């Protein structure tokens, strides 16, 4: 049961986007459509899972003073792996996400979980935490992407349901800030009701 808690915590109680407000750059930049947001979320989840596992194994042998640079190297290595895999198998998504794939390295969520969780817990707990936080991030990004796509382009998951044009501003930069702001309000309200 306690193992299950690690998984759920990352999704609701410690949701990285709506509650902790971490990793804002990819959250705002890559959510122009639901598919893009989901792609970014899954890429981050893969890095988070692998780095959490490796860091939980390495934590006992890394000297405390140089731990942050060590974590960054581990994370950067997995980001490079994800980057090359995406370039090979999903070239279209790789092109759209562009610079934000290498920038997963400086995503505070990944380093934050390594520092706050993986270096104090065992391999299985860390893996579960990585998956939970990753799912929380993916759900948040998909929701934001979906709202922006529906309002801005009148389509959902690339299926257009109306031939007229949407409100373009929601796909552009200002829409990202505004949609995230209001979704955060909604999340706070729902949490307060529970």
């Amino acid at each position, binding site marked *: 049961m306690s193992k299950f808690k690690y998984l759920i915590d990352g999704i609701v109680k410690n949701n990285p986007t709506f509650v902790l*407000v*971490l990793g*804002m*750059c990819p959250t*705002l*930049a890559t959510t122009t459509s639901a598919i893009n947001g989901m792609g970014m979320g899954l890429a981050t989840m893969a890095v988070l899972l692998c780095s959490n596992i490796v860091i939980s194994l390495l934590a006992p042998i890394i000297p405390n003073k140089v731990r942050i*640079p060590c974590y*960054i*190297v581990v994370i*950067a*290595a997995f*980001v*490079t792996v994800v*980057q*090359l895999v995406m370039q090979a198998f999903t070239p279209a998504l790789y092109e759209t996400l562009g*610079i934000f794939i*290498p*920038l997963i*390295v*400086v*995503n*505070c969520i990944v*380093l934050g979980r390594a520092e706050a969780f993986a270096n104090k817990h065992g391999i299985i707990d860390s893996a579960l935490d990585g998956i939970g936080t990753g799912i929380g991030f993916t759900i948040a990004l998909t929701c934001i992407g979906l709202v922006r796509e529906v309002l801005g382009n009148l389509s959902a998951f690339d299926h257009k349901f109306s031939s007229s044009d949407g409100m373009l*501003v929601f796909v*552009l*930069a*200002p*829409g*990202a*800030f*505004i949609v*995230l*702001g*209001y979704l*955060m*309000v909604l999340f*706070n*309200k729902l949490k*307060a009701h529970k």
Partner: protein
Amino acid sequence: MEYLIIIITAVFVNNVVLSQFLGICPFLGVSKKISTAFGMSLALILVMGLATLVTYLIQNYVLVNTWFGREINITFMQTIVFILVIAALVQMVEIILKKINPTLYQALGIFLPLITTNCAVLGAALIVVTKEFSFGGEPHMMNLAESVVYSMSLAIGFGIAIILFAGMREQLELSNVPKSLRGTPIALITAGLLALAFMGFQGIV
């Protein structure tokens, strides 16, 4: 003339925070007071200029070069190499500044460690070595001087955006905001309106 176009493009049209979404964390995190926002942007201008200078040289003379008679192209190592170099550079700037100019260190010191995880620094370093820019002429890869000017201008754009935003947030503190909008949500919506204003610069270059 070309440099003027680069500066205007980087500061206003491709504003690093409001149109490229780099460096949102410090933009939301240290924008509660104008004075801290100002210190952060000064530190960022210094670090982004230096970081781009070093990573540009690494990209063109280490990752792509002829070593021992063999041509190598290991640009897939970009991410790892750049982040390590930037982290080391920031640490070094901190140590040097502490020694030679303690007053400046007092002013910028607390912001320097935060900058390593500012994605604007790594983002700018990656953009200048991977993207082609036209700036009114033929599309081309930027040379060293252009790259450094571009990324320092991006940092100036960050400074303008964060100082404007800090001014707005100081005012917001005094106004009566609905309970569930308080804190980050209202800040994000304000930033959205600011981004809308900056969209007006699109098309001037």
